[in-house]
């Protein structure tokens, strides 16, 4: 058990001039499930590999359990990692794969086999102990990889997109299994994904990365309700938040001719701002901003209405959420009304959040 700390940790790959991870400051508490999320190329894998010791730290430091491990090789860090492609050794059986870290630690064969069987039982894999990885399905391989990680009882688990090779349904199931396993073991976990839904459901806290920089870290709800900048606002949530360039005058925004009061926090602001509206902050009603329905996506009870409207003379795409039963039809003309208390405002230039 240990906490993890990145202190101004930086990685600059040779031959590049932009750091893949730029002065990362991040603290993961003991027993916490931390998810690193961000678009492709944002530096998630690099950050994780720096923690594992697989990537040199070019500046700053990495600490595990208060111990500076910046210059220690991976085997001295007491971490276990689950890889995207599982990296199961094709020439070893499931049992031998799971027991591999114990073998490296010099544990006796009988003891290794006993522990491997116990781990396999825990993962529901005891029937497969004698098989080779090539005789397993993707989900089963994933479990073996998990088994290899937990058998050594490391102080930190590292997982790099462990579910991305599974089909959607299995992914949801494994998501729940991983969450339960982590809760049982109580081991500090750093989990990398590019799927924001996975991040929101799994993480105790979520850290959003973009271009190697930490954008925001917080509990999933906090990221959703109070994104600290335009990037986080657009990245977290599905479908994405509507972001419209609008003009703010005297504490109110004109939203396609509609005057939307924005409360006291932004009263000083005037000029160009970005108005952020989650789909549920837009109501389909009988009055408001006129729009034309382009696509309607139904998800059981809810439906997302993708429409286009004129805002400030520009054609803008807007997504609204409605009840599926009352969803308009494609091509229909509708009116969108804003719930001002759910609106977010961002600076048009810096992208930073304005107001509370």
């Amino acid at each position: 058990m240990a906490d993890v700390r990145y202190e101004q940790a930086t990685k600059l790959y040779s031959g590049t001039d932009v750091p893949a991870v730029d002065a990362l400051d991040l603290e993961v508490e003991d027993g916490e499930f931390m998810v690193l999320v961000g678009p492709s190329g944002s530096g998630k894998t690099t950050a994780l590999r720096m923690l594992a010791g697989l990537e040199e730290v070019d500046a700053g430091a990495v600490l595990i359990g208060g111990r500076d491990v910046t210059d220690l090789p991976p085997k001295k860090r007491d971490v276990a990692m689950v890889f995207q492609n599982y990296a199961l050794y094709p020439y070893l059986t499931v049992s031998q794969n799971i027991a591999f870290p114990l073998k490296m630690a010099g544990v006796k064969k009988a003891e290794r086999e006993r522990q491997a069987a116990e781990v396999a039982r825990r993962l529901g894999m005891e029937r497969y102990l004698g098989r080779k990885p090539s005789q397993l399905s993707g989900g089963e391989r994933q479990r073996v990889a998990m088994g290899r990680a937990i058998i050594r009882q490391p102080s930190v688990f590292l997982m790099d997109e462990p579910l991305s090779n599974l089909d959607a349904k299995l992914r949801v199931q494994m998501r729940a299994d991983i969450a339960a396993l982590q809760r049982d073991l109580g081991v500090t976990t750093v989990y990398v994904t590019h799927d924001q839904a996975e991040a929101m459901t799994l993480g105790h806290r979520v850290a959003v990365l973009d271009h190697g920089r930490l954008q925001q870290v917080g509990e999933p709800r906090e990221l959703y309700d109070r994104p600290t900048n335009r990037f986080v606002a657009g990245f977290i949530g599905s479908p994405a938040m509507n972001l419209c360039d609008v003009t703010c005058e005297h504490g109110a925004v004109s939203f396609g001719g509609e005057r939307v009061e924005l409360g006291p926090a932004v009263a000083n602001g005037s000029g160009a701002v970005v108005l952020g509206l989650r789909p549920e902050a837009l109501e389909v009603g009988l009055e408001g901003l006129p729009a034309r329905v382009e696509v309607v996506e139904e998800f059981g009870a809810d439906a997302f209405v993708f429409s286009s409207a004129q805002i400030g003379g520009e054609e803008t795409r807007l997504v609204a959420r409605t009840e599926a039963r009352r969803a308009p039809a494609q091509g229909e003309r509708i009116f969108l009304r804003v719930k001002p208390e759910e609106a977010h405002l961002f600076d048009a230039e810096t992208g930073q959040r304005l107001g509370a």
Partner: protein
Amino acid sequence: MSAVTAPVALVRRRPPASVRRKRFLLAVANHSLLIAAAVAFLAPFIFILLTSLMTNNQALSTSLWPHPIRWSNFYDVFTKAPFWRWALNTLQYSVLATIGLVLSSVPVAYALARLRWRGRQVSFLIVLIALMLPPQVTVVPLYVMWAKLHLVGTLWPVILPNWFGDAFSIFLLRQFFLTIPEEYLDAARVDGCGELRIVATVVTRLAKPAIAAVALFSFLYTFNDFFLPLLYTGENPHHWVLSLGLSEFRSLHQVQWNLTMAATLLVMAPVIVLFFLAQRAFVEGVTLTGVKG
């Protein structure tokens, strides 16, 4: 209620007669060609085998079938020449050289393929240059060196260099190691392996076909090597290997073709047996080198 499903009667369609005739003729043509090639390749071996069973007088005649069959030729080989000594020398050369070559080339190839260090590109370039250097270029300086070490006349000058890596093997193994997914190595690192341990366990296991091919190439090459043993041990019959002994066999007494052929057969036998034993690894390795090399 479970419905009883009748087994599906699959009536295999027969291709039309014209198609069948074409396929048949094609098969006949293919096989005739292959059989002809096989006979052409086998003929010398069969000739050797038959001659090795003849009396010396018959061996000099035009008849092809041995009459009477003299199995004792194979016994005579051992009594008329120090055949055992040559065999042991050859074994010493091949085994020691092959072990040394594999043990020294695998780590070098791994370092060139997988570790990041200053000078790696230059080192690889040097390996490539060594690979392209014809052996005749280095023979004289090497001979002088071994002479100064007082090892000329023994087999050490042909064995020891293999313990310092072989350019071709390093190159071949490096190309193969490059194809091993990095994740395997990373997983091993996280699970407690140092680099040497990774080479000894994970890499060796994943690269088994390539390593087997390298070992086999080396064994066959050293087993058949004539030039270098002649150069260094030519003056000292005590250290001769089979290939040398075989060439000297004729001049030892008077030329005895039947015994020469029997000896030749005995020399070839281990290579052939080894090839059949390791056929899969060998063919795999050869295709590997074909694809990657």
